[in-house]
């Protein structure tokens, strides 16, 4: 039987994968993917808990997150294209203009 804890463990695993991706990857596009994975990990957790408590507000929240993530990707990818056009690369190690 698949219970709440399974879902939560899945969400935690997904989140960890996303987090490691955010920390380790150097390509900005990959960073975006990693963030998406983290967001979706949260969505899974929301949906599971919502269903467990029979409370729809969790699922509503998940929808919000999906909407926000979609718009974020739209804006973010636009910026990435501009960045790529300007510098010809998306490697983070090349963007250190704010070095203190």
């Amino acid at each position, binding site marked *: 039987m698949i219970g709440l804890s399974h879902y939560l463990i899945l969400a935690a695993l997904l989140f960890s994968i996303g987090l490691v991706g955010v920390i380790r990857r150097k390509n900005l596009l990959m960073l975006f993917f990693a963030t998406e994975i983290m967001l979706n990990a949260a969505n899974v957790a929301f949906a599971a808990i919502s269903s467990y408590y029979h409370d729809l507000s969790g699922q509503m929240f998940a929808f919000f997150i999906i909407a926000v993530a979609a718009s974020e990707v739209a804006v973010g990818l636009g910026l990435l294209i501009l960045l790529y056009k300007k510098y010809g690369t998306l490697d983070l190690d090349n*963007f250190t203009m704010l070095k203190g």
Partner: protein
Amino acid sequence: MESLVYTALFAPLIGSLFAALFGMKPKTLWTGVVTSLLLFVSFVASVLLLQHVMAVGPVHATLMDWIVAGDMRIPFGFNVDQVTAVMMVVVTLVSTVVHVYSNGYMEHDKGFNRFFSYLSAFVFSMLVLVMSDNFLGLFIGWEGVGVCSWLLIGFWYHKEDVTRDINPSISPSWAANEAFIMNRIADLGMLVGIFLIYWNVGSLQYDTVFAAVPQMSHTLLVAIGIFLFIGAMGKSAQFPLHTWLADAMEGPTPVSALIHAATMVTAGVYLVIRAYPLYSTIPEVGYFIALLGTFVAIFAASMALVNRDLKRIIAYSTLSQLGYMFAAAGLGAYWVALFHLAAHAFFKALLFLGAGNVMHAMNDELDIFKMGGLKKVMRWTYLYMGVASLALCGIWPLAGFYSKDTILEVAFNEHTYGIWFVLWLTAGLTAFYSFRLVFLTFWSDERYKKYGFHPHEVQKYVLWAMAPLGILAVIFGWWKEEFMEFVTGLLPAYEVSEHTHHMVPILIAVTSAIAIGGIVVAYVLYHKRLRRNPKIEASLPYRILSNQYYIPILYEKAISKPYAELSDIAWKEIDMQVVDATVDGIAKLVEESGDESRKMQTGNLSDYLKWMAAGAIILAVLAVVAVVKS
């Protein structure tokens, strides 16, 4: 009437601010004229107030609330009663004369405008001091005159320090600092006195405080009396805080006349007179004041005997006369002290202004051994200084005769024959050194020719300006009865006993005899030529006197030097090593940690994300721990 009070008080302030506007500019004649005119306005207002007080009674005016905090309420209040009215007229009259005089005296000085600004500011502070109706206002004026005195003694601050052998005052700025610091020491005593009053009475208004005197314990009254008197000792340069007054002669001579002879130094006497309800309940403190005053009278006179410096001789005589005033006030004859204060203000200011004329004529030479025979070229100055000296010696019928004789009568009447004898002896010394000065300056052989001086009389209007003081030095004493009647409207009347009353003619004769004796000795010794006896000048008593009993040197060796060394230790060991080091350490810590943590700012987003993740994890762990614990 309130408008008169404010006119008298604020006219000098306006003059001061006006002159200050042009303070850094080269000489502009009208600053001198305007400030003198405003002073005259103040003088007229003071005279009108005096008449009003005479006819109707005291005037009280409250300008505004100054400090209101909790139960404490201190207004800017001014009270013009008999004592204040007398003080105001004396102060504004002498100030007006000195202002006009300074127009001539400071004619070629670069700091002409600045000088007038300071001088008028001084008059304003002095008026605040005498007019305030509470101790705090008095203290503000007290400090104000202190600051102005400092500014004016050090007026020629650019002069270099020299050793004591060349100039006993070292330099104007040194003398100014000495005066200021001495006064600061004494002011601490005065502040403690004021605190004691406030703690025990809960008010600083004169009338409230003096009404509460009968309810206070005797010890407390003694403590307050002593602490207030310490303040008075500083301002009036009583032993052991007396050294600054002679050194204060480094200032321009009009300043010496106004501040260090006629007005500011009498503030201490004024304080004792003002606080008479307090001092008359503690006769033992009064007796101490009288003793100290008597001691200072003869102590200062003895130093004047051998001094060669024109202004320092007069400064010592001021000190000596202040001693007389304190002797009178200490013995309970407050009105006599006030009478001598006023008379002294007139003839001593005149004497100083005359000395200023002589200095002017002699290119700022002060050594009376280098003068002589000046009466031929400076007839009017000679006349003024002669009259002032006669008044100072107490020769009938000049002002000093009436005031000084009354003090001696008081001393006799109180059966304090020791005080009487010393004061009597001092009268003889006073006569001797005053006329030693007069004869050596104006009579005897014309020694100045040898030194190549070309003395000349000062401007006409300067001589005219001195006339009011000259006249008052002669006639002021004639108003003794009226004066007594007027001020005893406030101050306690002092009645001499039947026995003393019979003795008065003998006392007068004895006192006049010693005064005339002093003059005669001076005449015999010095009227023809300067007599110097190297044997006497090399003798120990002479050297002690001419070195001011070695007190300045003692102060320097025993107090200033160790204090400077202590300060040096406090600076290098405590301040630099502990305080500064702590502050610097904190700054260094912040700077170094900032320098280290700056390395976090790699500019690489990846690194920032790592830091963020680490932070988030720490927060999550903390949250979990908190949940588990609760």
